[in-house]
């Protein structure tokens, strides 16, 4: 049985819903069952946001992932990656951006955060913003992270590329190409 339970984490406005939409489109193209729960409303104003994304070859029941069952946390912000550890399974992977989004006065030290992340057995920390900038689009850090996390999602890389073509197609060819470049650059950072 194929099952991927993924938690996407970040701060309102950082683009985690685009990651969710890309994976969702790929899942539909792969004929998988899917449920994806999002946060809309008040929290989107700079608060912590998360999305539960569940893919399976069998029908999915709960819209929310049970504690201890997530296979993957994809986070566009380092502190936010830690907020969802109660959901991560023993064998799960944590893939996170290293660049903090500081909009609270008591944001902890980044070194301490990274130390906590490194305590997780399966973790990848990347400078998604830097890689995105190199790829030519500072705003595609979310697609870099998706690329880095992609080996841990049980769908072909090609199907994610196609999803990005579909997702950004309306915004023009250049938008598609920069996001694809970001996705591929992220993929190269992955250890797998």
């Amino acid at each position, binding site marked *: 049985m194929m099952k991927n339970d993924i938690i996407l984490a970040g701060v309102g406005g950082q683009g985690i819903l685009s990651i969710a939409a890309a994976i969702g489109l790929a899942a539909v193209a792969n004929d998988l069952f899917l449920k*994806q729960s999002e946060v809309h409303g008040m929290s989107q104003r700079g608060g912590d946001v998360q999305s539960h994304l569940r893919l399976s070859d069998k029908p999915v029941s709960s819209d929310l992932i049970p504690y201890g069952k997530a296979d993957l946390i994809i986070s566009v912000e380092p502190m936010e990656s830690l907020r969802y550890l109660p959901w991560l399974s023993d064998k799960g992977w944590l893939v996170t951006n290293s660049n903090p989004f500081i909009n609270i006065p008591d944001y902890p030290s980044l070194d301490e955060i990274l130390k906590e992340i490194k305590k997780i057995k399966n973790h990848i920390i990347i400078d998604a913003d830097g890689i995105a900038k190199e790829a030519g689009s500072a705003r595609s850090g979310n697609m870099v992270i998706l690329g880095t996390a992609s080996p841990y999602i049980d769908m072909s890389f090609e199907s994610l590329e196609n999803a990005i073509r579909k997702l950004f197609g309306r915004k023009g060819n250049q938008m598609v190409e920069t996001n694809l470049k970001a996705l591929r650059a992220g993929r190269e950072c992955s250890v797998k």
Partner: protein
Amino acid sequence: MKRVLLLGDEAIAQAALDAGLSGMYAYPGTPSTEIMEFIQSSKVGSDRNVHREWSSNEKTAMEAALGMSYAGKRAMVAMKHVGLNVAADGFINSAITGVNGGLIIVSADDPSMHSSQNEQDSRFYGKFAFVPCFEPSNQQEAYDMVFDAFEVSEKYMMPVLVRITTRLAHSRASINLRATLPQKKLSLPVDPLQFVLLPAIARKKYKSLLSAYESLRYESLITKYNNFKDGSKRDLGIITCGIAYNYFLENVGESISDFPVLKISAYPFPKELIKDITGRCKEILILEEGAPVIEEAIRGILDDGIKIRGRLDGTVPRDGELNPAIVAKAIGLPVSYGKAVPSLVKMRPPSFCIGCGHADMFNSLTEAIKPYGSGHVFSDIGCYTLAALPPFNAINSCVDMGASVTMAIGASDAGLFPSIAVIGDSTFTHSGMTGLLDAVVKNSPVTIIISDNSTTGMTGGQKSQATGRIEQICEGIGVKREHLRVIVPLRKNHAENVCILKEEFEYRGVSVVIASRECIQTATKRKRSENSNE
């Protein structure tokens, strides 16, 4: 068959379009907003010229939808749960008038109050009004139920309530679509007095509503969504409804076949099925998202039947939404948590966007109010409510749409001076205008600050009915021109704005200060789309 990936909200919108909708009416409110937004952006909506403009509030939306139904066409009105309070007068009386074209009221509840001030359960309203209520447990059911809800509505000439909760509204799944039905033609009610609720007519219609509601229990389209499935267990039976069913299924997996399960997704709920399952089992666990509506009905006052477990005996928490862990514990299954959240992880509450005009307005307000001490500022529902949090700590109330104006009036009646209201532009046209009229008529010494960002911001930037009209509205209501001040909340205007606010606080009559600057979010979006159109 076409399959598409849709939010629960979008599935309802798509179904309404596919079922021949002619009019969609709504006021934005999380978690219901995306229903109207989907119809506004859909091709079918524009091809078929479906009405899809926002209304000023839920009451006007409800009544306009009833008018569309009067004219024989299918209409839907959508709102968040507390919006149904605003629409309640029209909603409850629409049960007595009945409908002509099919009419669906969608109320999206927000248990755990992710974006709300309470977690009331709309199913109470269904029973209160004697209106059938559908409660889908997943996106496909939400889609399918809309078709059946329109059929029930037209067959029984009753409005139908569709109740969803946040997790369904804002969760995506792939849906099988049906063929599109034609829209209905304009046709007036056969009985010209159907919608005239004069007491003599209303009494007759109320009697027939009561008997129609009872006969709904045997309506096949309702019973279709209420399923009993027996299992080998006799020590525990499950009654579950709406989205709670998913959490149950998630936990028990294939061993669901052991459990006797009654899944309720349509109301009035089936007494016979409840008697059936309770007669088979020693204990019943009731899992429902929201209030213990079914549980209270089954327990009654005597509560002397079989052992019932649920929200009322502490098996399930009395408040807050359900999740897989809560349901696991209620069934007696173990929950395996991952690692604990490290203590260094800090709360990250929502906050004003960088460059937000509300924030600049509050900076000026905080300085202007300082000499009077704290406790003078009544506020309202919108992004600006975030001023209750540090570093602003600038407001003293947030109760319901429009209450800032009227609470300021009442407090000034009691002698509080100055008494100040802060309300957003969209909230002002939703429910603030009538309060302002009260203030003008008795010349209350209040200062109303309308923080005008020219949009309905908190719900994501929907069109505000107030845009370009606030000054005219205030003048029309009778606010004196010299006490109708317009300021631009920018840091560079801070000193001047503080002066203006102080002047108006000191005025012993009604003054309105309009702090006007476009929402930073909608401004960015607008500029981006203008650039891409060039």
